[in-house]
């Protein structure tokens, strides 16, 4: 075992002391515990639809029903344009990352509080908890993606080479959910108010993102401010990669990605800072 080899050198295997630097992030520990991360994700996926009547069908039904509703309300009634793409496909392409984001955010926010029994009883890198919570819904997203392929075939839309860029945008989506989730999960330990704010925030956020309407509907002068919402870049990216009829606004992408990067680094630093008192205040 490599652990015993290390102790053989009379070198401390582990030193426990108050944390000094703000940027002492111990990300190596997260990498070392990747097996546990895998098990936590596996648990989340496995238990999600236990003791439900139709089980995993929920994964498919939820975005599908939302898509139908959106089509009826926004397209048929409100006559919102969809950049020349059949509205159901237009909406579903955005719902794909959005439903993932909404679900991942909700789960991540309550993840640390929900794992109180772990946090107070055993040590492992705490970052694994929000990380697992934000990665588990990716499985749902993959299922929805298959539905989208069916839809695209139905409307005879042929994917372009942009499809190859999809993982990039998927990564950006996960990072957005994780970044916001890190802040909210750590805050939630101390202030349970977060639990009430998140569903509300998610709802506002949905209207602030181009899910039911195209970005082109937003006036040009507000575009930059609008793209501070990282989900704008994500959804634009998804539409371009999957439907590919219009090249994306790169300015929007860069702004969104920069915001995510700042949120994520800040989130990790904040989480690590708060983590020290998790076991004491949870």
């Amino acid at each position: 075992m490599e652990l015993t080899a290390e102790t053989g050198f009379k070198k401390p295997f582990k030193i426990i002391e108050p944390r000094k630097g703000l940027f002492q992030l111990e990300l190596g520990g997260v990498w070392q515990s990747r097996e546990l991360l895998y098990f936590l994700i596996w648990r989340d996926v496995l238990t999600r639809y236990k003791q439900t009547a139709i089980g995993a069908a929920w994964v498919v039904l939820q975005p599908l029903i939302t898509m139908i509703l959106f089509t009826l309300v926004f397209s048929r009634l409100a006559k919102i344009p969809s950049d020349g793409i059949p509205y159901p496909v237009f909406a579903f392409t955005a719902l794909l990352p959005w439903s993932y984001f909404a679900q991942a955010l909700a789960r991540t926010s309550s993840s640390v509080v929900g794992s109180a029994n772990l946090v107070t009883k055993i040590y492992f890198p705490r970052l694994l908890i929000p990380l697992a919570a934000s990665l588990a819904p990716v499985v749902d997203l993959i299922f929805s993606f298959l539905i989208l392929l069916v839809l695209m075939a139905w409307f005879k839309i042929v994917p372009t080479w942009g499809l190859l860029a999809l993982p990039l945008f998927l990564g950006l989506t996960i990072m957005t959910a994780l970044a916001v989730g890190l802040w909210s999960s750590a805050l939630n330990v101390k202030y349970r108010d977060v639990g009430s704010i998140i569903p509300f925030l998610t709802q506002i956020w949905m209207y602030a993102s181009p899910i039911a309407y195209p970005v082109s509907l937003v006036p040009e002068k507000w575009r930059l401010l609008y793209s501070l919402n990282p989900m704008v870049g994500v959804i634009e990216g998804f539409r371009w990669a999957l439907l590919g009829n219009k090249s994306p606004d790169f300015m929007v992408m860069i702004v969104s990605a920069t915001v995510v990067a700042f949120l994520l680094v800040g989130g990790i630093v904040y989480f690590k800072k708060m983590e020290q008192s998790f076991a004491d205040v949870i």
Partner: protein
Amino acid sequence: MSEIAIRVENLSKKYTIPATQRHDTLCDQLSYRLKSVFHRNGRAECGDKTFWALKDVSFEIKEGEIVGIIGHNGAGKSTLLKILSQITLPTQGRSEIYGRVGSLLEVGTGFHPELTGRENIFLNGAIIGMTKAEINLHFDAIVDFSEVEQFIDMPVKRYSSGMYVKLAFAVSAHLKPEILMIDEVLSVGDLQFQRKCMAYIEELRKSNSTILFVSHNMFAVKAMCNRVILLSEGKICFDGSAEDGIKLYEGPSKTSALPWAQNAIGADPSQWDVFIENVETFDETGMQRDLFNYGERIRIRLGYTVRKIVSNPNFLVSFIRSDDVACCNYNTAMDGFSVPSLETDGMIELLTPPLNLVSESYKIFVLVRDAKFENLYCAQVGKTFHVRHDVLNTHFGVFHEQGEWFLPNEVVDHKAFNFTGGLLP
């Protein structure tokens, strides 16, 4: 000389208790911060109290030592274990740990009720620090050890609590750490299961593992540990042999007031009509002892001080086992001994019948009432004594008394005899 396993230097942990109100919602926090902006002394007024759960604790533990950490509630035992197992960070000081740590502050940490036994073995194994390869390797052994093979594919929410604990411990027992920290998890399960737990500890001991053991059960500490660290108010007040440490922990003969009595007859025991100053235990020959063999008689000597004359007093002595089971009671009124009115300080002694209590530790509760059990004059808990027997423990009940046995034909005769004797004229 053997290698160091754990080195702790000036370890301290401070907790803050908000004094007046809690500020756990964002709104509270905001109004609190605002107040402290407007009132210059706002913060000082609400003055959050701080207390040191641990203060400047230093010790070294060598490889292969089994150390018991004892102390009264709130002495800092669990805090120490939590810091050493990295659940919480110290405020000051440092500790070095040389070896792979396993900590069992609870068995079955992270068990998910919806998952099956099989799935939980993997999940719990990963959480307590086993690799997937290790779990795979030990899987059959874990299932065997747990004795729940036939339910292994059933969600654990359908398990009985006994099965749950067995499965949980089975996983933990296959963690082979170099340093193990345990917090009273072994006091669960039935007799056979407890034996397995002790066997697991024994096996770890043989493989030269270092064990840190927090417990209130002095009997278990005495049986397992060769060294104890006694904590009191966050500081180490004794570090040495188990025998001496336990003696110090239990106090030579000091008594303390029972909280419920403080509500009933006054918070300050020094104002009570009668106060038991000390409780001492002797064997029949008058040797001062606190460890007795099963079946021995015990002399319990109570020294009391009198503040107000008590007429017709009734002294009561109860033995309360470490798991809070009240085992027996002796009192002067029912034992037909009349005590003259208490006017000056004095002493009274009880000689128990041969005590057939099972092997455990027992606290001595002393009360003074009147003969009709109406008034209470004092209620205190005195020292603890132990009863020793190789086989008899709490699984055999409270007492073990000898019964009479008969072979079948004798039973029939006996019944027939009783029958005719009892029912027919």
